[in-house]
């Protein structure tokens, strides 16, 4: 019962992540990579992502404080950020990254700053959700993780 309930909760949480547009198809690709050798692969990747991306966000923030803005540098940072976000399937984050890069290309400082706030927001929101999700998954135990619906 307990495990059933948990499983259902996991499934529900996962589904809502997709339905609400936080995650996209790439996340499923990651899930497919999980196997016995790496049963927590997705969580590991996501953890790695957040470690690196946090640092990147700091860099961008610093760059945004300079004046005038170095759009090339900002674009480079964001390029990287977008790459890793898309690799884990962070859909909303990716969308904001794209928007940011548009503003960079246009040289729109105000747009950049504004969008960057969005980036951070989405980045943090997804993090919370994923953390909650992985907590459930861990609770369910290794035997259960393999059984989540794909």
């Amino acid at each position, binding site marked *: 019962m307990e495990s059933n309930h948990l499983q259902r909760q996991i499934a529900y949480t996962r589904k809502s992540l997709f339905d609400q547009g936080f995650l996209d198809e790439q996340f499923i*690709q990651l899930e497919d*990579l999980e196997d016995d050798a*790496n049963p927590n692969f997705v969580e590991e990747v996501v953890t790695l*992502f957040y470690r690196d991306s946090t640092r990147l966000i700091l860099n961008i923030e610093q760059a945004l404080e300079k004046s005038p803005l170095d759009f090339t540098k900002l674009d480079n940072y964001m*390029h*990287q950020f977008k*790459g*890793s976000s898309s690799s884990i*399937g962070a859909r909303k984050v990716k969308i904001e990254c794209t928007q940011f890069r548009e503003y960079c290309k246009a040289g729109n400082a105000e747009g950049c700053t504004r969008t960057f706030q969005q980036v951070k927001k989405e980045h943090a929101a997804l993090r919370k959700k994923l953390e909650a999700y992985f907590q459930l998954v861990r609770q369910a135990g290794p035997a259960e993780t393999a059984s989540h619906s794909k």
Partner: protein
Amino acid sequence: MLVIDMAAELENVKILSTELARKFRPWIVISVDFFEPQYELKRSVFQDMNLDNQERWISQQSGVSDQFPVVSIRVLVVDDDRTCLMILDKMLRICHYKVTKCQQAEVALSMLRENKGGFDIVISDIHMPNMDGFELLKHIGLEMDLPVILMSVDEGQALKSVTHGACDYLTKPIRIESIKKIWQHVVRKRRNELKDLKKLGSVEDGDLHRKPSEVEYASLANEGNSRHSKKRKDEEDEGEERNDTSTLKKPRVVWSAELHQQFVTAVNRLGLDKAVPKKILEFMNVPGLTRENVASHLQKYRLYIRRPSGVSQNQSGLSTPFMDPQEANYGVMASLGRLDLQATYVQGQVLPRSLMTPQAGGFGRLTTNSGIGMPFTDQRNLFSSQILKLRSGEEQQLRNSSNQMNLLQGLPTNMEPKQLSHLHQSVQSFRSLGLQVSHGASDLPSSSMSLRTSSSAHVDSIYENQSSSLRMQMAQSRLKGQILNGITGDHASGLPSVNPVLGKNGTIINGATYIPISQDSEMINFPMAHVLEFPRNGFPLEGTQEVSTLTSTGVFQAGENSEMKGWRGFAPNYDILNEFCQGKPQELELQNVGLTVEMFQNSNSEQGNLDFLPSVLGHQGFTSSEKNGQNKNTSDVCKAVVSLMEGNEHMNAENITQCYNHLLVDNSFRVKDECLPDRSGKTVILAEHFGGDDLMSALFKQVSFSSLPWLQFFLPKLYLWIMIFGG
């Protein structure tokens, strides 16, 4: 028998495909050898299969299991992003590759240098701090010559990657399907290397009739991978190759910086054009270096320096297909004019090399290569050979993607609609013509069935990239990854038809047949009796087509209906259409290249001034479905055209557009071109629909065939004139 057909076709295709592959390092892997069918499969059936099934079938044919084949390929992955690196690493491991990760390009290079022969392929991100992917690619190409796959979040880097020598390009996020197929690059490269070594001695490559031997693959996949065991073997070739490759794996010569410098010195001393491997070898005087090594290095070097960013004589304007079309045209014309005249009249012979030699790199050039005023048949031959290679490889992968056609077809069509009265446009039109050629070279039937692209994901990604960056305006819904002659599809997003060349006496030759269906009422639209839909990505053509006389007779026939004025001019022509539409059951012949010739003709009678006679010679790609129903289809179309013509003495654009829309049925038709030469002296006027070009529409006010007889005489000369002019 389909099998027999294909065998012969395959041979030709293979030859050219490898030639192409080698010269241009296309991202399309044309691994013909791998995918020779072991048993018959009706082409039509195959074409109807979706991509997955096709893959499966092919891999089954090649003796591979349905699952991903096991190979011991060692991959070096370079990416500064740890997340991506981790994901890629996992994907590669799952695909049974041996993976080494690396975060910096310099580290990767030193790994490669230290461990020569330790890696089979490199996958690298483009945007990295310090050394970026392109630089890494360059070093690897010069020093170790491994296949390199570049990747990026950006979608637009595909062309650049390939012209710099990458063998493939992936867009992030990377899918595992793409990863599964990277082994093809390794194998292809090995195979080509072996072939290169065969063709030594001369600057130009010699004999192309090599098949990869079993040996090469044994070295690659020793773990009992039976994939290659079923490859078709040519004993003679095998024997030869065994003699040459006595060791399983050729020891790689590492071209260190010094060695390369000696090489470059030698080449410069000899002169790039005169630099033959033998002389270079003598000059370098390096013990242990063989002529083969030099030959293959020379080839890479030549490719390298011919890159857009490198030295390029007349291609400065051709680095991308997106550039100003006029420049491109001009450059193309200038460079091709010389070539074309030699190359064109060789029917039945594909001379891809001669065409391609001055132009290395990207698709844009490849297509423009064939674009200039050549006789249509020859054009077709040439185009088909080149484009065939490009296309056939893609066909299967790109079948249903509307992006596919765009890549090749869109390339030359970036032109602005309003460029008229300019010979350059004629070049453009011929370029687009080239793209429209259905691959029916008489000696190169486009049996693309067994041509595969390297990876559908790759190709898709590339093509998607391309299409996003190119201004694709092809009508697409029906396009199925083949070059279709003439009008493509029924969407309003067609390309402006290419601008006619105004001859002195007002003859216009318009090569473009991208006919969009625009609703512009000013257009004079001619219903085009060639619906270009390939219900299957069929092999439109095969065998020998004798579209020989299209150029002078069929194509430039302005018709003999001297009473035609305005649209009335069409009326008499319908009987022609009817005749050939209905009478010819034979199919599958290559139709002439989709060249629309518009006769800009002087109407002697009522108008008395130069009017444009848009007589379109409808060799536009009629491609019939295999052998059935073509007549029906054709006659349907013809009837539609006929009724259109008949019913409208003074058609205006809207009418025609509407009629035209009706014409676009799902089937493609193939009209035997033999029909056309028969009509010597008669105009086959199939309506052409011009889209998006106000100026042009203004030009095509009248249709008049009153002076047809003289035109018939005149046109070939005009054509020649244009070619010469273009040259």
